[in-house]
């Protein structure tokens, strides 16, 4: 009598996990579990990337706030200008850096005593954006 022995229709499988991480022979880094993302200067300076523009400052330095010619200004266009903000104002078809004063009446104050404070008509006062930070390089380049 022939007995037909069927091959198991569902051979059991053993799944072995594949460790993709390499296993160095030396002592594992004790800091491995504590790695975090490096600090990012963008994150520090820019809160709204989509409305932030970079603008280069040129001309006389605003020494009292430490802004020098050639510095890189970080300008947020969506920021609502407040009293005392450093702003990029549009004056006679040019971008200019001024301090904005809202009281007692709107004024664009020059940082340099050689220039007068301007009192634009409020409706005609065009502000491109608020300077939220600036970067001054101390070596090389500019």
């Amino acid at each position, binding site marked *: 009598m022939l007995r037909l022995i069927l091959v198991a229709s569902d051979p059991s499988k053993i799944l072995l996990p594949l460790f993709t991480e390499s296993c160095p022979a030396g002592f594992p880094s004790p800091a491995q579990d504590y790695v975090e993302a490096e600090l990012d200067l963008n994150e520090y300076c820019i809160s709204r990337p989509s409305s932030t523009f*970079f*603008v280069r400052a040129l001309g006389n330095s605003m020494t009292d706030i430490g802004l020098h010619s050639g510095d890189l200004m970080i300008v947020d266009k969506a920021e609502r200008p407040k009293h005392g903000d450093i702003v990029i104002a549009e004056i006679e078809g040019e*971008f200019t850096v001024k301090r904005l004063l809202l009281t007692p009446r709107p004024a664009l104050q020059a940082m340099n005593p050689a220039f007068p404070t301007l009192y634009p008509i409020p409706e005609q006062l065009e502000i491109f954006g608020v300077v939220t930070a600036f970067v001054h390089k101390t070596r090389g380049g500019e």
Partner: protein
Amino acid sequence: MFALADVNSFYASCEKVFRPDLRSKAVVVLSNNDGCVIARSQEAKRLGIKMGVPWFQLKAMQFAEPVISFSSNYELYASMSNRVMSHLEELAPRVEQYSIDEMFLDIRGIDNCIDFEDFGRKLRKHVKSGTGLTIGVGMGPTKTLAKSAQWASKEWPQFGGVLALTQGNRQRTEKMLSLQPVEEIWGMGRRISKKLNAMGILTALQLSHANPTFIRKNFNVVLERTVRELNGESCISLEEAPPPKQQIVCSRSFWERITTYDAMRQAVCQYAERAAEKLREERQYCRHIAVFIKSSPFAINEPYYSNMASEKLHTPTKDTRDIIAAAMKALDCIWQDGHRYAKAGIMLNDFTPTGVSQLNLFDEVQPRVHSEELMKVLDGINQSGLGKVWFAGRGIAPEWKMKREMLSPAYTTCWDEIPHARIT
């Protein structure tokens, strides 16, 4: 509900953002190679400057006020377009970039919190404050109706750039559609609108009353969908991820006319290289390669010549060498001496995601060995920014550059070109 946000005079407006001296000036932007007008500011439209006017004609015209022209600065426009997109994404849950200056938004359920038109005005204010660009917003239960609403919001200034056509107010929708000519409907081609006009269908309202079955029989399923969409039945959904490309075109007008075969060969070879590079960026293989060449249709006393030829490959490829070889074969079929060629281009079609195909026993063309690796090295060098390598068929001249004589700075993408502000 869908909303369509579109930036007013997008290219011209981008040029104005960083130029306070141009705030109320007439500004136009020219096409590639400074060919013709492709964008106009409000002031330029008022002067009667039409779309598509060749630059040489515009230059000779006299206007009551100065017209400032710019070459197209795609670096700037792409950057500003992304910024507009991010602003919309901050307020709407799902946004589809439809073109560089138009975005569809999913605004379902927003009316539970805020009136649709108030929301539209909010979008407008948000984009304006962050980018300096003004958008128009049209809203409707379907994409086609949103586009119609956006058209109307531009046509009638009293809407203030925002218009919502809601299902609840069908009367208002019908009133608006009765004023919209069929050729202004979303996706309507000139030929189809002419045929509709001949049948007495002149306005969007009349089209919406047409029988969809009749339309499908006499036209096509696309127009049937338009009819249904005009009646508020949404047939076209929001596509957040762009569908994979079905075609790659690389074509350019020449800076000066090409008359010799060698020069043309070099130009076509260069486009073939660029197209192959794009193909690999898309991770696709192609089987169909077409080349076209043409002389200028504007040239006086010269016969106009334009022709196209194509090559079909046995196996799909993404190897630059195969694409150049096929392009050269196609070029040889259509080249004629004696013409002053103004434009040439290459088109890749018939894409597959893999290079696998059934090989034929008698195939002469065998797949190239190590093609993948070679192309990887090639792209790696060319994208490194350190230098370029190219095929000798292109000649030894450096890469041909677009003519952009009135190009504005790349204000947002290049450190050396960012705007300046004077400290005073």
